[in-house]
């Protein structure tokens, strides 16, 4: 008997990912402005989906308030650049700052259970929004623009933002991958399924949850900061809107909750839908809501879950597989 953590598909996947990464890094030399700008948005979507999936899919922590971190990430970027820091350094500093801030927040919020946590986070996001509104720099709901970016010429600026988003996304996904495969990753899933039992076998639930929470907060804040970089304008109402969490939920639900590949697939789909149908206005939004609803009802494990069941492939395995057993007919497929 042996424990396997990879398979033929996953090895191929690693190869493809490496190639893809190299291609993406070279993109600024190859692609049109439009393609780069759209890819930047896609990367941010992937970050958002992956971070929400980290909390909800692997940790069972459904938050309807991730816009708190998204908004704070953007706000912190504004504040830090206002001190004269270069906007690109400010992105990272902002995300770190929000990550730091999420530590005390987690101490309180993680005491809440299920629905109370979900809504508690939402209320916290509103509080964050109202507090940011008190900052005179932000001018209430009107907000402010990140004009510090105007110091770069348009081409450089586009390329730098693109690369920041690409590196941010790659770093976060890689980090997530290793965390999930670590002892904390499996512990988090145990906690998700039964916290008391996890405690009884020596898992430090509080600590593990806290780190996941902080990680997700950091990632989401980075997404918010990157979004600000590519959109320039900061308006509290927009950045602290529950709509961001709605998008995250949509992406993860459609792609596959609790599946590493699911969040990415969901972000790709959301991105495609947005690109093609957003012009239909009201009907686009109706469709988005309806698809999220249908997916959650009929494909509880999302599209990736369905693919996994049908074809039995995992591209990015984070679990453990015992091989060399007398295989029982219902065993979980690799």
């Amino acid at each position, binding site marked *: 008997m042996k424990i396997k953590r990879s398979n033929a598909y996953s090895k191929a996947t690693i190869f493809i990912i490496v190639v893809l990464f190299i291609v993406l890094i070279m993109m600024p030399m190859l692609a049109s402005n439009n393609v780069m700008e759209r890819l930047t948005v896609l990367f941010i979507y992937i970050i958002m989906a992956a971070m929400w999936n980290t909390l909800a899919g692997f940790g069972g922590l459904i938050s309807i308030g991730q816009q708190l971190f998204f908004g704070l990430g953007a706000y912190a970027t504004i504040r830090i650049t206002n001190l004269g820091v270069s906007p690109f350094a400010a992105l990272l500093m902002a995300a770190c700052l929000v990550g730091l801030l999420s530590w005390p927040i987690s101490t309180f919020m993680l005491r809440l259970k299920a629905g109370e946590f979900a809504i508690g986070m939402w209320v916290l996001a509103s509080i964050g929004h109202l507090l940011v509104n008190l900052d005179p720099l932000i001018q209430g709901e009107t907000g402010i623009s990140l004009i510090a970016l105007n110091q770069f010429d348009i081409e450089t600026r586009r390329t730098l933002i693109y690369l920041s988003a690409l590196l941010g996304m790659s770093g976060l996904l890689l980090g997530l991958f290793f965390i999930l495969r670590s002892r904390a990753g499996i512990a988090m899933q*145990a906690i998700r399924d039964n916290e008391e*039992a996890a405690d*009884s076998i*020596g898992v430090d639930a509080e600590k593990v949850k806290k780190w996941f929470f902080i990680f997700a907060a950091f990632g989401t804040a980075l997404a918010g900061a990157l979004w600000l970089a590519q959109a320039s304008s900061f308006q509290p109402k927009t950045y602290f809107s529950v709509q961001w969490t709605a998008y995250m939920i949509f992406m993860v639900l459609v792609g596959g909750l609790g599946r590493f590949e699911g969040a990415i697939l969901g972000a790709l789909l959301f991105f495609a839908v947005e690109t093609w149908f957003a012009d239909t206005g009201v009907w686009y939004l109706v469709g988005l809501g309806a698809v999220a609803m249908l997916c959650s009802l009929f494909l509880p494990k999302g599209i990736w879950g369905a693919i996994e069941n049908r074809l039995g492939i995992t591209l990015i395995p984070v679990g453990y597989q015992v091989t060399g057993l007398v295989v029982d007919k*219902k065993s979980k497929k690799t």
Partner: protein
Amino acid sequence: MIITPYSQLQATGIHKSFGRVQVLNGIDFTMDTNDAIGIVGPNGAGKSTLLSVLSGAQPPTSGQIKLNDQDITHQPARQRAKQGLVRTHQIPKPFSGISVFENVFVAAIHSATNNREEAYDIALESIKLCGMLPLANREADSIGLLDRKRLELARALATQPKLLFLDEIGGGLTDAEALQLVDTILTLRERGIGIVWIEHIVHILLRVAKTLICMDSGRIIAQGTPDDVMSNQQVMKAYMGGASHAVSA
């Protein structure tokens, strides 16, 4: 054979109440790694609650618990688990979204060892000991009630406990299955793991227990060798009723 290092647990004057309901009424309890203690008692006597308190899932209302002369009364369960004090749950609590192997592996990597390879071995061994190898890759959600109980045991074993508390893991087994379970537990006993076992199927309990405790209404009403306890009048009245055949069978 692995011999477990010595460990001793001492609880004195344990009281536990839920709001107005007094569930444990001054329990004194001592055990070490050489013990194999069976606990019987009518439903609601407080047996499971005693396990919860000893293992740290719930704090006692008053009283003191010491492990190797260290006060652990206010230590959370996870720290006790790391020191070798582990329980199973009467109503199984599997991690339903991950596989049986992963269920057991979490326990191994968090309480037994930090080394991944070692943890694999410990997990596989525990699973094997509980006869669950064929189910190793099954999602825990899809296994039946009795397999869930075995999983509870396997998971507890993977922490490499010194003192192991079992809460009704034998209920619902057929005779043959029960005998298998007894074998498993005897193996553990030989390894020097101290065992506390709550069970209503007295005849299988008696195959393992060196000491028997009978609880009623939050008190220990009898304690001693199995024979003594089973013939105790109070025990007969509170627990066995007319069901003496359960012992003889």
